[in-house]
């Protein structure tokens, strides 16, 4: 009797208030992509262009939360993924976008769209299609439970590969010296 084929883990990924740098770093696992694709299949992800997240084993989220849409997508991921991974500095602690947190949102919008030099009669965008910005940028774990974290800006391809192989093998990801980085 032949062994039953192992079911592939279904994985969704997204970038919220991030720069897609973590996704680019994920591609830096290079030839490991061939090994990985034997173990996982992609659901919603910039790599598949599927727009809605389906029932998944793993959700990998880059970027923090800077607007209402980010929060909505994060909650969808939490509802449909058995485990969630926060990847990169922005997902873990807010990162670069969170450096606006000591400024008032109204003052930021005023300066960006009204008062900075070169802007003549600028208007603060208010199209209903645009998601509303949050007063402060938050990391993911402040809104939903996050199961695992991969810090780094971005985490290296090696760090991502180590974490993914740990997860696929059923272990909590551990990044030792050289792989655990916050910068």
């Amino acid at each position, binding site marked *: 009797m032949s062994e039953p084929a192992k079911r592939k883990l279904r994985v969704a990924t997204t970038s919220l208030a991030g720069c897609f740098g973590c996704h680019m770093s994920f591609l830096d696992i290079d030839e490991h992509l061939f090994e990985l694709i034997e173990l996982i299949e992609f659901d919603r992800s910039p790599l598949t262009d599927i727009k809605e997240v389906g029932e998944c084993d793993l959700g990998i989220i880059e970027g923090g939360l800077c607007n209402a849409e980010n929060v909505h997508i994060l909650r969808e991921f939490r509802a449909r993924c058995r485990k969630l991974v926060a990847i990169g500095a922005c997902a*873990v*602690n807010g990162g670069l976008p969170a450096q606006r947190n*000591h400024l008032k949102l109204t003052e930021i919008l005023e300066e960006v769209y009204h008062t900075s030099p070169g802007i003549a009669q600028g208007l603060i965008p208010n199209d209903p299609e645009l998601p509303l910005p949050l007063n*402060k940028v938050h*990391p993911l774990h402040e809104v939903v439970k996050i199961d695992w974290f*991969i810090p780094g800006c971005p985490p290296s391809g090696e760090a991502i590969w180590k974490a993914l192989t740990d997860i696929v093998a059923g272990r909590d990801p551990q*990044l030792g010296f050289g792989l*655990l980085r*916050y*910068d």
Partner: protein
Amino acid sequence: MSPTFTLDGKEVPFREGQTIIQAAHAAGQWIPHLCYHPEFKPHGSCKLCTVTVNGRHMASCTTQAAAGQVVESDTEALNGERRTLLQMLFVEGNHFCPSCEKSGDCKLQATAYDLGMMTPHFDHFYPCRPVDASHPEILLDFNRCILCSLCVRASRDVDGKSVFALSGRGIGTKLVVNAASGRLADTDVAMDDKAIAVCPVGVILKKRRGFAVPIGERTYDKAPISATEE
């Protein structure tokens, strides 16, 4: 023959008057710490060097070594408590490593790496702490201050100036400088002060020196802090 205590089961000799952390480091056994510095009087505030002495939690930088003590340090329970202390330090300030000049040379960051801190865990405070760029040569970025008081001790005890002080109490405690204006430029700080060199994080920075050392060649890129420091 010098008296000894045991640290994680190993015999550690000590001289009369040595603290546990001094004896441990002299014997080549690492105990994590942030506010302790071998050149200064202990402050005992960061609590990262907490060990158990005969089962009781004690700060190893303020506890004198005594013959026969049974000291435990590198245990999962104590390292877990240390990670929690680090997480609280990270969320109380604004620690954005990717844009910090001290990244790679920072003892807070290196200690968090060494103890495997994967997440800050708690909700962030994101405090508003304006920088002091008044001095032509030195920048103060209070966002990263962990209140270790090393600059306070160095300025007072070595430089004889008391340029820095900790002001306020509890969560309101903050680093201040000794000038009526509150600006570093109006103090008698000098570039060769010990206080300028001793900051373990990225608060006291010499201007126009940032990012001079490339990633891969910084202090803690090469080896973990536990293998780098005494």
